[in-house]
């Protein structure tokens, strides 16, 4: 198992490298590309000032050098092994433990790592809430549909899940916001953000106080997350429900289920004790594949619900041609996805005794 994990991690390296090469070349080839010029966003400088700033950026990020050289420099800074560089960008000796430096965001003027440290947890929170939510709903519906195959529920669930898939996210988001967070209709949920400002001072759990009911940080967070999570998850129901349904159907008629029935087990026990666990296996494998699409989906959802996650950051970074940020975001989200796959595969090993990796 350990060698397997190690091997998987090693295999990530070419992928991550590939991601950065791809993104870097896209940026380098784009109009304007990665040049210091785009960094000098301010219009309020004299030509000499701009030139000075340009020189400063060029020197700092080496933006006047040919693209491959720039890339290698960046790579050297990011990789934990490589040449130690000093503040002037001169190359020092080779080291195996120099630490990773994600660079400084052009737009923010702050270290990329610091920015990401703020944003990643938010997006992860969103996705990690969404994923189980999607799964629970999909499994429940899929299971009911499978056991009542051919019934009105089965057909209806199939069609409506598919219909949900077909609704553009932004339309759903705006409508949800417009109807469920609007005083004109139902003001059930907040319009923006992932927590109220008061929530920071609240105790974690909800409780009754002399002042009345105190929502508590947890409930407040949940309250804020409901609409975004619905928005992120409804698209995923279709595929998962379908998968659950087929998987359960397949297993309901599997030989071992028949064996279980022959033992005299009741149908319910067959379903829960035998079929269910086996049916979950294919669901585990696809879970990791959902992650990239969730990340992409959060781009829109974060915009609509004003959540400061990676999605927003990504849009900003791309629009602002913030090279360091774009590169880091892409490889880190790639990395997260790969890790997601790895975790999914490991879970699979745990769930299915037949699979063992060595």
């Amino acid at each position, binding site marked *: 198992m350990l060698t397997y994990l190690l091997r998987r991690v090693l295999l990530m390296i070419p992928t991550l490298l590939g991601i950065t090469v791809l993104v870097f070349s896209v940026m380098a080839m784009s109009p*304007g590309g990665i040049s210091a010029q785009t960094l000098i966003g301010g219009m*309020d400088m004299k030509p000499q000032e701009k030139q000075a700033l340009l020189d400063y950026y060029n020197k700092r990020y080496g933006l006047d050098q040919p693209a491959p050289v720039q890339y290698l420099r960046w790579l050297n800074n990011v990789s934990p092994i490589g040449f130690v560089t000093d503040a002037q960008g001169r190359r020092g000796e080779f080291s195996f433990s120099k630490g990773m430096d994600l660079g400084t965001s052009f737009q923010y*003027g702050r270290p990329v790592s610091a920015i990401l440290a703020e944003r990643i947890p938010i997006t992860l929170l969103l996705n990690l809430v969404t994923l189980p939510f999607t799964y629970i709903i999909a499994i429940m519906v899929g299971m009911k549909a499978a056991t009542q195959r051919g019934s009105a529920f089965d057909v209806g669930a199939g069609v409506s899940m598919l219909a949900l898939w077909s609704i553009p996210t932004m339309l759903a988001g705006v409508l949800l916001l*417009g109807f469920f967070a609007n005083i004109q209709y139902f003001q059930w949920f907040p319009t923006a953000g992932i927590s109220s400002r008061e929530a920071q001072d609240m105790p974690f759990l909800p409780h009754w106080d002399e002042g009345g009911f105190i929502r508590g940080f947890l409930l407040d967070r949940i309250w804020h997350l409901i609409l975004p999570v619905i928005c992120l998850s409804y698209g995923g129901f279709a595929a998962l429900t379908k998968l659950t349904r087929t998987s359960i159907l397949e297993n309901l008629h599997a030989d071992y289920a028949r064996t279980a029935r022959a033992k005299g087990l009741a149908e319910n026990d067959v379903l829960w004790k035998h079929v269910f666990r086996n049916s979950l296996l294919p669901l585990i494998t696809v879970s990791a594949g959902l992650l990239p699409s969730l990340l992409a989906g959060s781009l829109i959802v974060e915009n609509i619900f004003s959540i400061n996650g990676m999605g927003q950051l990504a849009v900003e970074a791309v629009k602002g041609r913030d090279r360091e940020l774009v590169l880091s975001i892409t490889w880190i989200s790639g990395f997260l996805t790969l890790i997601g796959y790895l975790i999914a595969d490991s879970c699979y090993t745990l769930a299915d005794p037949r699979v063992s990796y060595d």
Partner: protein
Amino acid sequence: DRQWLKLSEMQIALSEQAKDMRELRGAIASGAIAANASTNSTKSGEVAQAFQRAYAASRQPDYAQGDWSVEAFGTNLKTITPLVSSDAYASNVQSYVLESLITRNPDTLEWEGLVAKDWTISEDGLVISFRMREDVSFSDGQPLTADDVVFSFDFIMTDAIQAPRERAYLEKIKSVKANGKYEVVFTFKEPYFEALSLAGGIGIMPKHFYEPYLKEPQKFNESKGLLLGSGPYRLADPKNWTPDKGNIELVRNERYWGDVQPSYHRILWKIIQNDSARLTTFRNGDIDSYSARPVEYQELKKDPQIQAKSQNFEYMPPVVGYSYIGWNQERGGKPTRFADKRVRQAMTYLTDVSRVIKDVMLDYAEPAVSPFSNASKQHDAALQPYQVDLDKAKALLKDAGYQDKNADGVLEDKAGQPFEFKLTYFQANEDTKRMVLLLKDLYARAGVKLIPTPQEWPVMLENLDKKDFDAITLGWTSGIETDLYQIFHSSQAVSKGDNYVSYKNPALDKLIDDARRTVDESKRMPLWQQAERILYEDQPYTFLMRRKSLLFVDKRIHNLQMTKLGLNFGSLPLENYVPLAQQKYTQ
């Protein structure tokens, strides 16, 4: 100086109008050098001139302290540390915390002392010395002295500090010296007509708080929320605000030195990126104001729910910018078709500004004649906007050698090249997009083909710097008095200069130079007017319009008044308040 902040850049960043005031406070200059203005007689003896309006408000019968001001920002702030921050949102926040020596009176537009008691200007206009109030202290209780002013200047001028913009702006100041504890002397390198606002407008940063960062400039440059000042509000924790909080909250500065204490307990800004989410939030009563686009404004004005809860304002602040189409005259070292004055004039004749205002802006704008606003003293009232005239335009174009030779509906020049050009505009603005589409149809009538080219901000900036575009529509903000140098002086037609249309007119250059050197307003104004006439004739830009601010404000906010600077909503010292009965937030 934010005078030359592009209008559309603000449009990305700004959508509520309170910023006008912030902008103004931070920046604008007028020629009116109110020499030896002093703490002149006040209605109630001890209240300084700058606090008069606020004082009057506090005398209102229903005046009450308390409640919060809750606003929304359209993008997440990257940092609110002064100097490091570059967007208008941050400067809005800072205006509640940092104060400067002088401020402009909204009624008279004259400068009056805030931290400064009074000031004197030397004969040659090169030396300005301010006498400061002695009772001013920062929100942490430390007194504010001349040293802090000197420090603020020195801090900005330190190379390691990331403040290139401010440094460029203060470049004309030779030195700032403290003369005793409560007097500070600014010396300029050359006479400059905006010297007073330059010197008096610096936000005063507490030395004891910011000085340590001179040793670790990087830490300052990368900071997110280092903000401490003497203003009426303060950050609860002046060092540790971070963007991931999702909102910005200022609390009342209990030690505030001013003659009138501010009304709100807290000032809160929420971050709401999505437009419709912002409107919904306003509807729900969770934010206090909403600034609308013309189309929206018209709709919302009829909306009973909105009407019931809010008051609406449409007004034209004097500093509102103008939008224009810039005709690029030189590209790749060669003159373009727009280098011909007749062509530019023809384009202006074709550009039916009044129609744009009517159709796109729904009449919430007025036509611009020149960079100078109609109300400004710089403006020559005799100049009227070009009236749309298709025949005249056609004649001018014919004169310039354009004819439809192959009968495909498009004019060709002498070389047979069709008259088509790309109009570059910033993609995120819906009104601009609508206008461009309208212009496209208008120009088509003269056989001119316009190709709409929306661009992203960085790409556009790059094209501007390289002067790589046919025509571009953007906006500039104006000041109470507007300097033409940056935009129209031929010396600025270099790479990365702001005269990116490469407009060169020696006569205009001379007028600009003269005007800038002339400290005396009565002599300076005729020079500006003369320059304006040249611009009017040459049409380096087709000047389009100035847009009105369209604002909805929650009804519980009281004492909203129109001043010469626009609406006093959120202006400082704070004049708005919420009567006790209507207060919503109790904390």
